[in-house]
Protein backbone atom coordinates (compact mmCIF):
# COMPACT_ATOMS: atom_id res chain seq x y z
CA UNK A 1 0.00 0.00 0.00
CA UNK A 2 2.88 2.37 0.83
CA UNK A 3 4.45 1.77 -2.59
CA UNK A 4 1.14 2.30 -4.41
CA UNK A 5 0.58 5.52 -2.45
CA UNK A 6 4.09 6.79 -3.36
CA UNK A 7 3.40 6.28 -7.08
CA UNK A 8 -0.13 7.72 -6.73
CA UNK A 9 1.19 10.96 -5.19
CA UNK A 10 4.00 11.27 -7.74
CA UNK A 11 1.55 10.79 -10.63
CA UNK A 12 -0.92 13.27 -9.23
CA UNK A 13 1.74 15.95 -8.68
CA UNK A 14 3.15 15.44 -12.16
CA UNK A 15 -0.34 15.79 -13.67
CA UNK A 16 -1.27 18.94 -11.76
CA UNK A 17 2.09 20.62 -12.33
CA UNK A 18 1.91 20.25 -16.09
CA UNK A 19 0.17 23.32 -17.50
CA UNK A 20 -0.29 21.72 -20.92
CA UNK A 21 -2.08 18.76 -19.38
CA UNK A 22 -4.33 21.07 -17.36
CA UNK A 23 -5.15 23.08 -20.48
CA UNK A 24 -6.03 20.17 -22.76
CA UNK A 25 -7.86 18.07 -20.19
CA UNK A 26 -9.69 20.74 -18.20
CA UNK A 27 -9.58 24.18 -19.84
CA UNK A 28 -10.15 22.95 -23.39
CA UNK A 29 -13.21 20.80 -22.51
CA UNK A 30 -14.60 23.81 -20.62
CA UNK A 31 -14.10 26.00 -23.72
CA UNK A 32 -15.91 23.32 -25.76
CA UNK A 33 -18.65 23.29 -23.12
CA UNK A 34 -19.17 27.02 -23.67
CA UNK A 35 -19.15 26.50 -27.45
CA UNK A 36 -21.62 23.64 -27.11
CA UNK A 37 -24.02 25.58 -24.91
CA UNK A 38 -23.90 28.88 -26.79
CA UNK A 39 -23.23 27.83 -30.39
CA UNK A 40 -23.52 24.15 -31.36
CA UNK A 41 -26.67 23.27 -29.39
CA UNK A 42 -28.28 26.73 -29.47
CA UNK A 43 -31.14 25.35 -31.56
CA UNK A 44 -32.02 22.62 -29.05
CA UNK A 45 -35.64 22.62 -27.86
CA UNK A 46 -36.00 25.28 -25.13
CA UNK A 47 -37.94 22.93 -22.86
CA UNK A 48 -35.03 20.49 -22.87
CA UNK A 49 -32.16 23.00 -22.86
CA UNK A 50 -31.05 22.20 -19.26
CA UNK A 51 -30.93 18.46 -20.05
CA UNK A 52 -29.07 19.08 -23.32
CA UNK A 53 -26.54 21.16 -21.40
CA UNK A 54 -26.18 18.30 -18.95
CA UNK A 55 -25.54 16.01 -21.93
CA UNK A 56 -22.87 18.34 -23.33
CA UNK A 57 -21.27 18.48 -19.89
CA UNK A 58 -21.08 14.68 -19.74
CA UNK A 59 -19.57 14.56 -23.25
CA UNK A 60 -16.88 17.02 -22.17
CA UNK A 61 -16.07 14.89 -19.13
CA UNK A 62 -15.61 11.88 -21.43
CA UNK A 63 -13.56 14.08 -23.79
CA UNK A 64 -11.36 15.05 -20.84
CA UNK A 65 -10.91 11.53 -19.53
CA UNK A 66 -10.10 10.17 -22.98
CA UNK A 67 -7.38 12.76 -23.54
CA UNK A 68 -6.04 12.14 -20.03
CA UNK A 69 -5.89 8.39 -20.50
CA UNK A 70 -4.87 8.18 -24.15
CA UNK A 71 -2.20 10.88 -24.19
CA UNK A 72 -1.20 11.94 -20.67
CA UNK A 73 -0.68 8.41 -19.40
CA UNK A 74 1.64 7.33 -22.27
CA UNK A 75 3.41 10.68 -21.98
CA UNK A 76 4.21 10.06 -18.31
CA UNK A 77 5.33 6.51 -19.04
CA UNK A 78 7.54 7.62 -21.95
CA UNK A 79 9.12 10.38 -19.85
CA UNK A 80 9.92 7.93 -17.05
CA UNK A 81 11.38 5.46 -19.52
CA UNK A 82 13.54 8.10 -21.23
CA UNK A 83 14.79 9.23 -17.82
CA UNK A 84 15.86 5.70 -16.89
CA UNK A 85 13.33 5.45 -14.05
CA UNK A 86 12.25 1.95 -15.07
CA UNK A 87 15.87 0.75 -14.88
CA UNK A 88 16.07 2.22 -11.42
CA UNK A 89 12.73 0.66 -10.38
CA UNK A 90 13.77 -2.71 -11.77
CA UNK A 91 16.77 -2.70 -9.46
CA UNK A 92 14.54 -1.97 -6.44
CA UNK A 93 12.23 -4.25 -4.46
CA UNK A 94 9.18 -2.84 -6.29
CA UNK A 95 6.47 -4.84 -8.06
CA UNK A 96 5.34 -3.71 -11.51
CA UNK A 97 1.66 -4.06 -10.64
CA UNK A 98 2.04 -1.72 -7.67
CA UNK A 99 3.69 0.89 -9.89
CA UNK A 100 0.96 0.73 -12.53
CA UNK A 101 -1.85 0.62 -9.96
CA UNK A 102 -0.46 3.81 -8.37
CA UNK A 103 -0.33 5.48 -11.78
CA UNK A 104 -3.90 4.46 -12.62
CA UNK A 105 -5.26 5.61 -9.27
CA UNK A 106 -3.48 8.94 -9.80
CA UNK A 107 -5.11 9.30 -13.21
CA UNK A 108 -8.51 8.25 -11.85
CA UNK A 109 -8.35 10.84 -9.08
CA UNK A 110 -7.29 13.50 -11.59
CA UNK A 111 -10.20 12.58 -13.89
CA UNK A 112 -12.71 12.67 -11.03
CA UNK A 113 -11.54 16.12 -9.93
CA UNK A 114 -11.65 17.31 -13.57
CA UNK A 115 -15.18 15.88 -13.87
CA UNK A 116 -16.33 17.75 -10.76
CA UNK A 117 -14.90 21.02 -12.13
CA UNK A 118 -16.56 20.51 -15.52
CA UNK A 119 -19.88 19.62 -13.85
CA UNK A 120 -19.72 22.77 -11.70
CA UNK A 121 -19.16 24.93 -14.78
CA UNK A 122 -21.90 23.03 -16.62
CA UNK A 123 -24.30 23.77 -13.78
CA UNK A 124 -23.33 27.45 -13.85
CA UNK A 125 -24.11 27.42 -17.59
CA UNK A 126 -27.57 26.02 -16.88
CA UNK A 127 -27.08 22.26 -17.04
CA UNK A 128 -29.59 20.32 -14.96
CA UNK A 129 -28.94 16.65 -14.25
CA UNK A 130 -31.43 13.89 -13.46
CA UNK A 131 -30.20 12.97 -10.03
CA UNK A 132 -31.38 9.60 -8.80
CA UNK A 133 -29.28 7.40 -6.58
CA UNK A 134 -29.22 4.53 -9.07
CA UNK A 135 -28.57 6.83 -12.03
CA UNK A 136 -25.68 8.60 -10.34
CA UNK A 137 -24.20 5.31 -9.08
CA UNK A 138 -24.33 3.62 -12.48
CA UNK A 139 -22.98 6.79 -14.13
CA UNK A 140 -20.07 6.89 -11.70
CA UNK A 141 -19.41 3.24 -12.45
CA UNK A 142 -19.31 3.87 -16.20
CA UNK A 143 -17.15 6.96 -15.68
CA UNK A 144 -14.62 4.84 -13.77
CA UNK A 145 -14.93 2.09 -16.39
CA UNK A 146 -14.25 4.53 -19.22
CA UNK A 147 -11.30 5.99 -17.30
CA UNK A 148 -9.82 2.53 -16.76
CA UNK A 149 -10.33 1.74 -20.45
CA UNK A 150 -8.69 5.02 -21.51
CA UNK A 151 -5.85 4.42 -19.03
CA UNK A 152 -5.49 0.94 -20.50
CA UNK A 153 -5.25 2.32 -24.03
CA UNK A 154 -2.71 4.88 -22.84
CA UNK A 155 -0.66 2.24 -21.03
CA UNK A 156 -0.50 0.13 -24.20
CA UNK A 157 0.61 3.17 -26.24
CA UNK A 158 3.20 4.08 -23.59
CA UNK A 159 4.46 0.51 -23.38
CA UNK A 160 5.22 0.23 -27.08
CA UNK A 161 5.97 3.77 -28.25
CA UNK A 162 9.19 4.75 -26.55
CA UNK A 163 9.62 8.26 -27.92
CA UNK A 164 7.97 10.87 -25.67
CA UNK A 165 6.50 13.01 -28.46
CA UNK A 166 5.53 9.91 -30.40
CA UNK A 167 3.64 8.46 -27.44
CA UNK A 168 1.76 11.70 -26.70
CA UNK A 169 0.89 12.46 -30.34
CA UNK A 170 -0.26 8.89 -30.97
CA UNK A 171 -2.52 9.12 -27.93
CA UNK A 172 -3.94 12.47 -29.00
CA UNK A 173 -4.43 11.23 -32.56
CA UNK A 174 -6.24 8.03 -31.62
CA UNK A 175 -8.43 9.69 -29.01
CA UNK A 176 -9.45 12.71 -31.12
CA UNK A 177 -10.09 10.72 -34.30
CA UNK A 178 -11.99 7.97 -32.49
CA UNK A 179 -14.02 10.53 -30.49
CA UNK A 180 -15.02 12.22 -33.73
CA UNK A 181 -15.86 8.97 -35.50
CA UNK A 182 -17.88 7.74 -32.51
CA UNK A 183 -19.75 10.99 -32.02
CA UNK A 184 -18.53 11.84 -28.53
CA UNK A 185 -18.16 15.50 -29.42
CA UNK A 186 -21.21 15.87 -31.71
CA UNK A 187 -24.71 14.37 -32.02
CA UNK A 188 -25.16 10.68 -32.71
CA UNK A 189 -27.84 11.47 -35.27
CA UNK A 190 -25.25 13.21 -37.48
CA UNK A 191 -23.26 9.97 -37.86
CA UNK A 192 -23.71 7.69 -40.90
CA UNK A 193 -25.09 4.20 -40.22
CA UNK A 194 -21.74 2.41 -39.97
CA UNK A 195 -20.35 4.95 -37.53
CA UNK A 196 -23.55 4.80 -35.45
CA UNK A 197 -22.83 1.09 -34.98
CA UNK A 198 -19.23 1.92 -34.07
CA UNK A 199 -20.49 4.54 -31.61
CA UNK A 200 -22.68 1.99 -29.83
CA UNK A 201 -19.80 -0.46 -29.29
CA UNK A 202 -16.78 1.77 -28.92
CA UNK A 203 -16.43 1.56 -25.13
CA UNK A 204 -15.91 5.29 -24.59
CA UNK A 205 -18.77 6.62 -26.72
CA UNK A 206 -20.94 3.85 -25.33
CA UNK A 207 -20.12 4.85 -21.73
CA UNK A 208 -20.72 8.47 -22.73
CA UNK A 209 -24.14 7.50 -24.07
CA UNK A 210 -25.04 5.54 -20.95
CA UNK A 211 -24.04 8.37 -18.58
CA UNK A 212 -25.77 11.01 -20.73
CA UNK A 213 -28.87 8.85 -20.96
CA UNK A 214 -29.02 8.45 -17.19
CA UNK A 215 -28.15 12.02 -16.24
CA UNK A 216 -29.69 14.05 -19.09
CA UNK A 217 -32.17 12.83 -21.69
CA UNK A 218 -32.56 10.22 -24.46
CA UNK A 219 -33.21 13.04 -26.97
CA UNK A 220 -29.66 14.28 -26.42
CA UNK A 221 -28.14 10.80 -26.77
CA UNK A 222 -30.17 9.99 -29.88
CA UNK A 223 -30.90 6.37 -28.92
CA UNK A 224 -31.44 4.18 -25.88
CA UNK A 225 -28.13 2.57 -24.90
CA UNK A 226 -29.59 0.65 -21.95
CA UNK A 227 -29.80 -2.73 -23.60
CA UNK A 228 -28.10 -5.80 -22.18
CA UNK A 229 -25.86 -6.48 -25.15
CA UNK A 230 -24.45 -2.95 -25.42
CA UNK A 231 -23.98 -2.60 -21.66
CA UNK A 232 -22.29 -6.00 -21.39
CA UNK A 233 -20.08 -5.33 -24.40
CA UNK A 234 -19.02 -1.94 -23.02
CA UNK A 235 -18.18 -3.37 -19.60
CA UNK A 236 -16.34 -6.41 -20.97
CA UNK A 237 -14.39 -4.48 -23.62
CA UNK A 238 -13.32 -1.77 -21.14
CA UNK A 239 -12.23 -4.28 -18.51
CA UNK A 240 -10.48 -6.40 -21.15
CA UNK A 241 -8.60 -3.38 -22.51
CA UNK A 242 -7.53 -2.55 -18.98
CA UNK A 243 -6.39 -6.09 -18.13
CA UNK A 244 -4.50 -6.48 -21.41
CA UNK A 245 -2.73 -3.20 -20.73
CA UNK A 246 -1.65 -4.38 -17.26
CA UNK A 247 -0.24 -7.60 -18.70
CA UNK A 248 1.59 -5.82 -21.52
CA UNK A 249 2.95 -3.17 -19.16
CA UNK A 250 4.21 -5.75 -16.67
CA UNK A 251 5.76 -7.84 -19.41
CA UNK A 252 7.30 -5.20 -21.66
CA UNK A 253 7.46 -1.76 -20.09
CA UNK A 254 10.14 -2.45 -17.49
CA UNK A 255 12.10 -4.64 -19.86
CA UNK A 256 15.68 -3.46 -20.08
CA UNK A 257 16.85 -5.44 -23.09
Amino acid at each position, binding site marked *: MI*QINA*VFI*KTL*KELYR*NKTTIFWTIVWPVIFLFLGVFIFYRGAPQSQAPQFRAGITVSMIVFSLMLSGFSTMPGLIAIDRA*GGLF*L*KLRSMPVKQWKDILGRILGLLFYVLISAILIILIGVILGARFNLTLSGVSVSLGFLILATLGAAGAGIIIGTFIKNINGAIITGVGISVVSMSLAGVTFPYSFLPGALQAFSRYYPFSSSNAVISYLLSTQEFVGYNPMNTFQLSFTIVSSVLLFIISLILYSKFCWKAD
Partner: protein
Amino acid sequence: MHAIEVKKLTKVYGKNQILKDVNLSVESGEFYCLMGPNGSGKTTLAAILASVREQTEGAVEIMGMPPSGARALIGYMPQENFSSPSLTGRENLLYFAGLLGYRKQKAKEVTGDLLKKVGLVTDADKLVSKYSGGMRKRLELATILFEGIKILILDEPTTGLDPTARRNFFELLLRAGRSSTIFLITHIGTDAEIADRIGLIDNGRIAAEGTPDELKKNNNLRNAITVETGIMDNGILEILNKFTDGQNVIETESGYKLSSDDISEDIPKIIKELDSRGFSVKRLESTTSTLDDVFYKLTGRSVKD
Protein backbone atom coordinates in the same frame (compact mmCIF):
# COMPACT_ATOMS: atom_id res chain seq x y z
CA MET B 1 31.71 -14.03 1.50
CA HIS B 2 32.36 -11.45 -1.21
CA ALA B 3 30.01 -8.48 -1.59
CA ILE B 4 29.99 -9.06 -5.34
CA GLU B 5 31.11 -12.23 -7.06
CA VAL B 6 30.99 -12.82 -10.80
CA LYS B 7 32.05 -16.12 -12.33
CA LYS B 8 32.40 -16.89 -16.04
CA LEU B 9 29.78 -14.31 -16.91
CA THR B 10 28.66 -14.11 -20.52
CA LYS B 11 26.03 -11.87 -22.07
CA VAL B 12 24.90 -12.24 -25.64
CA TYR B 13 22.53 -9.91 -27.53
CA GLY B 14 21.51 -11.46 -30.83
CA LYS B 15 24.81 -12.23 -32.52
CA ASN B 16 26.87 -9.87 -30.34
CA GLN B 17 28.72 -11.21 -27.36
CA ILE B 18 28.83 -8.22 -25.02
CA LEU B 19 30.50 -9.91 -22.04
CA LYS B 20 32.93 -12.80 -22.42
CA ASP B 21 33.78 -15.05 -19.53
CA VAL B 22 34.05 -12.24 -16.98
CA ASN B 23 35.32 -13.11 -13.51
CA LEU B 24 35.61 -10.60 -10.71
CA SER B 25 35.01 -10.28 -7.02
CA VAL B 26 34.61 -7.26 -4.78
CA GLU B 27 35.13 -7.39 -1.03
CA SER B 28 32.65 -5.91 1.40
CA GLY B 29 33.44 -2.21 1.93
CA GLU B 30 35.75 -2.07 -1.08
CA PHE B 31 35.56 0.67 -3.71
CA TYR B 32 35.88 -1.07 -7.06
CA CYS B 33 35.92 0.77 -10.36
CA LEU B 34 35.29 -0.79 -13.74
CA MET B 35 36.88 1.36 -16.41
CA GLY B 36 36.56 0.96 -20.14
CA PRO B 37 35.59 2.70 -23.36
CA ASN B 38 32.05 3.01 -24.73
CA GLY B 39 30.71 -0.33 -25.93
CA SER B 40 33.12 -2.36 -23.81
CA GLY B 41 30.26 -4.01 -21.87
CA LYS B 42 30.66 -2.16 -18.58
CA THR B 43 27.10 -0.79 -18.47
CA THR B 44 25.74 -4.25 -19.25
CA LEU B 45 27.77 -5.71 -16.40
CA ALA B 46 26.51 -3.04 -13.99
CA ALA B 47 22.93 -3.68 -15.12
CA ILE B 48 23.33 -7.43 -14.49
CA LEU B 49 24.72 -6.77 -11.01
CA ALA B 50 21.79 -4.44 -10.31
CA SER B 51 19.33 -7.15 -11.47
CA VAL B 52 18.14 -4.91 -14.28
CA ARG B 53 19.32 -7.40 -16.92
CA GLU B 54 19.97 -11.12 -16.86
CA GLN B 55 23.13 -12.88 -17.89
CA THR B 56 23.23 -15.45 -20.68
CA GLU B 57 25.67 -17.71 -18.85
CA GLY B 58 27.69 -17.67 -15.66
CA ALA B 59 26.98 -16.89 -12.04
CA VAL B 60 26.48 -13.59 -10.23
CA GLU B 61 26.12 -13.27 -6.48
CA ILE B 62 25.44 -10.18 -4.39
CA MET B 63 26.15 -10.87 -0.71
CA GLY B 64 25.76 -14.55 -1.49
CA MET B 65 22.41 -14.14 -3.26
CA PRO B 66 21.39 -13.82 -6.90
CA PRO B 67 20.91 -10.11 -7.77
CA SER B 68 17.12 -10.48 -8.02
CA GLY B 69 17.05 -11.69 -4.41
CA ALA B 70 19.30 -8.90 -3.19
CA ARG B 71 17.34 -5.90 -4.50
CA ALA B 72 16.82 -4.48 -1.02
CA LEU B 73 20.61 -4.33 -0.59
CA ILE B 74 21.38 -2.74 -3.96
CA GLY B 75 21.42 0.97 -4.71
CA TYR B 76 21.66 1.44 -8.47
CA MET B 77 22.27 4.77 -10.13
CA PRO B 78 21.82 4.44 -13.91
CA GLN B 79 23.47 6.88 -16.33
CA GLU B 80 20.26 8.75 -17.08
CA ASN B 81 18.69 11.44 -14.87
CA PHE B 82 15.86 9.39 -13.40
CA SER B 83 14.57 11.94 -10.86
CA SER B 84 11.30 13.61 -11.80
CA PRO B 85 11.79 17.23 -12.92
CA SER B 86 8.17 18.01 -11.97
CA LEU B 87 8.80 17.20 -8.32
CA THR B 88 11.00 18.95 -5.78
CA GLY B 89 14.15 17.30 -4.49
CA ARG B 90 12.39 16.40 -1.24
CA GLU B 91 9.34 15.00 -3.06
CA ASN B 92 11.58 12.84 -5.23
CA LEU B 93 13.24 11.36 -2.16
CA LEU B 94 9.88 10.85 -0.46
CA TYR B 95 8.75 8.94 -3.55
CA PHE B 96 11.77 6.61 -3.35
CA ALA B 97 11.32 6.30 0.42
CA GLY B 98 7.73 5.20 -0.23
CA LEU B 99 8.91 2.65 -2.79
CA LEU B 100 11.28 1.28 -0.15
CA GLY B 101 8.36 0.95 2.26
CA TYR B 102 9.02 3.83 4.64
CA ARG B 103 5.92 5.14 6.41
CA LYS B 104 5.13 8.86 6.15
CA GLN B 105 6.80 10.14 9.33
CA LYS B 106 9.88 7.93 9.04
CA ALA B 107 10.15 8.84 5.33
CA LYS B 108 10.19 12.54 6.24
CA GLU B 109 12.95 12.02 8.81
CA VAL B 110 15.07 9.83 6.54
CA THR B 111 14.77 12.12 3.51
CA GLY B 112 15.63 15.11 5.69
CA ASP B 113 18.84 13.35 6.76
CA LEU B 114 19.68 12.36 3.19
CA LEU B 115 19.18 15.91 1.93
CA LYS B 116 21.66 17.04 4.59
CA LYS B 117 24.12 14.33 3.57
CA VAL B 118 24.13 15.42 -0.06
CA GLY B 119 24.10 19.14 0.74
CA LEU B 120 20.68 19.95 -0.70
CA VAL B 121 18.83 21.16 2.38
CA THR B 122 18.43 24.74 1.15
CA ASP B 123 17.30 23.59 -2.31
CA ALA B 124 15.16 20.70 -1.09
CA ASP B 125 11.86 22.37 -1.93
CA LYS B 126 12.84 23.62 -5.38
CA LEU B 127 11.60 21.76 -8.43
CA VAL B 128 14.27 19.45 -9.83
CA SER B 129 13.78 21.14 -13.21
CA LYS B 130 15.50 24.17 -11.61
CA TYR B 131 18.49 22.10 -10.39
CA SER B 132 21.93 22.22 -12.00
CA GLY B 133 23.33 18.97 -13.41
CA GLY B 134 25.53 18.52 -10.35
CA MET B 135 22.66 19.08 -7.91
CA ARG B 136 20.51 16.57 -9.75
CA LYS B 137 23.26 13.95 -9.59
CA ARG B 138 23.68 14.59 -5.86
CA LEU B 139 19.94 14.12 -5.39
CA GLU B 140 20.08 10.86 -7.33
CA LEU B 141 23.04 9.78 -5.22
CA ALA B 142 20.81 10.28 -2.17
CA THR B 143 18.39 7.67 -3.57
CA ILE B 144 21.05 4.99 -3.11
CA LEU B 145 22.04 6.05 0.40
CA PHE B 146 18.88 4.87 2.20
CA GLU B 147 19.44 2.70 5.28
CA GLY B 148 19.89 -0.96 4.49
CA ILE B 149 21.50 -0.42 1.09
CA LYS B 150 24.90 -2.11 1.20
CA ILE B 151 26.05 -2.17 -2.42
CA LEU B 152 26.20 1.04 -4.45
CA ILE B 153 26.34 0.53 -8.20
CA LEU B 154 26.96 3.78 -10.08
CA ASP B 155 26.99 3.80 -13.87
CA GLU B 156 28.93 6.83 -15.16
CA PRO B 157 27.34 9.08 -12.53
CA THR B 158 29.23 12.19 -13.59
CA THR B 159 28.39 12.12 -17.29
CA GLY B 160 27.83 15.68 -18.48
CA LEU B 161 29.25 17.34 -15.37
CA ASP B 162 32.09 19.86 -15.44
CA PRO B 163 35.35 18.97 -13.63
CA THR B 164 34.41 20.87 -10.46
CA ALA B 165 30.99 19.25 -10.20
CA ARG B 166 32.63 15.88 -10.87
CA ARG B 167 35.13 16.39 -8.08
CA ASN B 168 32.38 17.52 -5.70
CA PHE B 169 30.31 14.46 -6.57
CA PHE B 170 33.15 12.04 -5.82
CA GLU B 171 34.06 13.82 -2.59
CA LEU B 172 30.45 13.39 -1.54
CA LEU B 173 30.40 9.75 -2.60
CA LEU B 174 33.54 9.01 -0.59
CA ARG B 175 32.13 10.81 2.45
CA ALA B 176 28.57 9.53 2.39
CA GLY B 177 28.94 6.10 0.85
CA ARG B 178 32.24 4.90 2.24
CA SER B 179 30.67 2.43 4.65
CA SER B 180 29.13 0.60 1.68
CA THR B 181 30.65 -1.44 -1.10
CA ILE B 182 30.97 0.79 -4.16
CA PHE B 183 31.00 -0.43 -7.75
CA LEU B 184 31.69 2.48 -10.07
CA ILE B 185 31.56 2.46 -13.86
CA THR B 186 33.55 5.10 -15.71
CA HIS B 187 35.59 5.81 -18.80
CA ILE B 188 37.49 8.66 -17.11
CA GLY B 189 40.88 7.70 -15.72
CA THR B 190 41.06 10.46 -13.11
CA ASP B 191 37.69 9.35 -11.70
CA ALA B 192 38.92 5.77 -11.46
CA GLU B 193 42.05 6.82 -9.51
CA ILE B 194 40.00 7.25 -6.31
CA ALA B 195 38.99 3.58 -6.23
CA ASP B 196 40.69 0.93 -4.08
CA ARG B 197 40.87 -1.42 -7.02
CA ILE B 198 40.24 -1.06 -10.73
CA GLY B 199 39.21 -3.49 -13.43
CA LEU B 200 39.96 -2.50 -17.00
CA ILE B 201 37.38 -3.87 -19.40
CA ASP B 202 37.75 -4.05 -23.15
CA ASN B 203 35.57 -5.86 -25.67
CA GLY B 204 33.66 -7.60 -22.91
CA ARG B 205 36.74 -9.00 -21.17
CA ILE B 206 38.58 -7.86 -18.05
CA ALA B 207 41.99 -6.91 -19.44
CA ALA B 208 43.66 -6.19 -16.09
CA GLU B 209 42.86 -5.66 -12.44
CA GLY B 210 44.67 -4.03 -9.54
CA THR B 211 45.17 -0.89 -7.51
CA PRO B 212 45.95 2.24 -9.56
CA ASP B 213 49.65 1.98 -8.59
CA GLU B 214 49.82 -1.73 -9.34
CA LEU B 215 48.31 -1.24 -12.76
CA LYS B 216 50.83 1.47 -13.59
CA LYS B 217 53.82 -0.40 -12.21
CA ASN B 218 52.87 -3.72 -13.77
CA ASN B 219 52.74 -2.01 -17.11
CA ASN B 220 55.99 -0.12 -16.61
CA LEU B 221 54.23 3.20 -16.50
CA ARG B 222 55.72 5.49 -13.94
CA ASN B 223 55.66 9.11 -13.00
CA ALA B 224 58.63 10.88 -14.57
CA ILE B 225 60.72 13.91 -13.55
CA THR B 226 62.81 15.77 -16.11
CA VAL B 227 65.60 17.98 -14.72
CA GLU B 228 67.57 20.55 -16.74
CA THR B 229 70.64 22.04 -15.06
CA GLY B 230 72.51 23.43 -18.03
CA ILE B 231 75.51 21.20 -17.40
CA MET B 232 76.04 17.46 -17.32
CA ASP B 233 77.85 16.36 -14.19
CA ASN B 234 78.38 13.10 -12.34
CA GLY B 235 77.46 14.87 -9.12
CA ILE B 236 74.00 15.56 -10.47
CA LEU B 237 73.65 11.97 -11.60
CA GLU B 238 74.69 10.79 -8.13
CA ILE B 239 71.97 12.92 -6.49
CA LEU B 240 69.24 11.89 -8.92
CA ASN B 241 70.09 8.21 -8.54
CA LYS B 242 69.00 8.49 -4.90
CA PHE B 243 65.48 9.41 -5.96
CA THR B 244 64.81 7.00 -8.77
CA ASP B 245 62.56 4.05 -8.02
CA GLY B 246 65.05 1.49 -9.20
CA GLN B 247 65.10 2.46 -12.85
CA ASN B 248 68.18 4.08 -14.39
CA VAL B 249 68.41 7.84 -14.63
CA ILE B 250 68.41 8.65 -18.32
CA GLU B 251 70.66 11.36 -19.74
CA THR B 252 68.82 13.45 -22.29
CA GLU B 253 70.10 16.19 -24.63
CA SER B 254 69.52 18.91 -22.09
CA GLY B 255 69.49 17.14 -18.75
CA TYR B 256 68.23 14.04 -16.98
CA LYS B 257 65.04 12.04 -16.72
CA LEU B 258 64.14 9.73 -13.88
CA SER B 259 61.06 7.82 -12.79
CA SER B 260 59.60 8.42 -9.36
CA ASP B 261 57.14 6.77 -7.00
CA ASP B 262 56.06 10.01 -5.44
CA ILE B 263 56.55 13.16 -7.48
CA SER B 264 55.14 15.58 -4.93
CA GLU B 265 57.59 14.37 -2.27
CA ASP B 266 60.65 13.92 -4.50
CA ILE B 267 60.63 17.21 -6.43
CA PRO B 268 61.26 19.58 -3.49
CA LYS B 269 63.96 17.21 -2.15
CA ILE B 270 65.74 17.06 -5.52
CA ILE B 271 65.73 20.85 -5.83
CA LYS B 272 66.99 21.25 -2.27
CA GLU B 273 69.80 18.73 -2.65
CA LEU B 274 70.93 20.04 -6.03
CA ASP B 275 70.94 23.54 -4.60
CA SER B 276 72.94 22.51 -1.53
CA ARG B 277 75.61 21.05 -3.85
CA GLY B 278 75.70 24.21 -5.96
CA PHE B 279 73.78 22.97 -8.99
CA SER B 280 71.11 25.37 -10.16
CA VAL B 281 67.96 23.96 -11.75
CA LYS B 282 66.99 25.71 -15.00
CA ARG B 283 63.85 23.71 -15.68
CA LEU B 284 62.06 20.89 -13.92
CA GLU B 285 59.07 19.08 -15.38
CA SER B 286 56.99 16.20 -14.10
CA THR B 287 54.72 13.88 -16.02
CA THR B 288 52.23 11.68 -14.26
CA SER B 289 51.21 8.44 -15.92
CA THR B 290 47.47 7.87 -15.87
CA LEU B 291 45.12 4.94 -16.01
CA ASP B 292 44.28 6.08 -19.54
CA ASP B 293 47.94 5.35 -20.37
CA VAL B 294 47.64 1.92 -18.78
CA PHE B 295 44.53 1.18 -20.80
CA TYR B 296 46.24 2.31 -23.99
CA LYS B 297 49.28 0.18 -23.26
CA LEU B 298 47.15 -2.90 -22.63
CA THR B 299 44.66 -2.61 -25.45
CA GLY B 300 46.27 -0.34 -28.01
CA ARG B 301 43.20 1.90 -27.93
CA SER B 302 42.17 4.96 -26.02
CA VAL B 303 39.63 4.58 -23.23
CA LYS B 304 37.84 7.60 -24.70
CA ASP B 305 37.16 5.81 -28.01
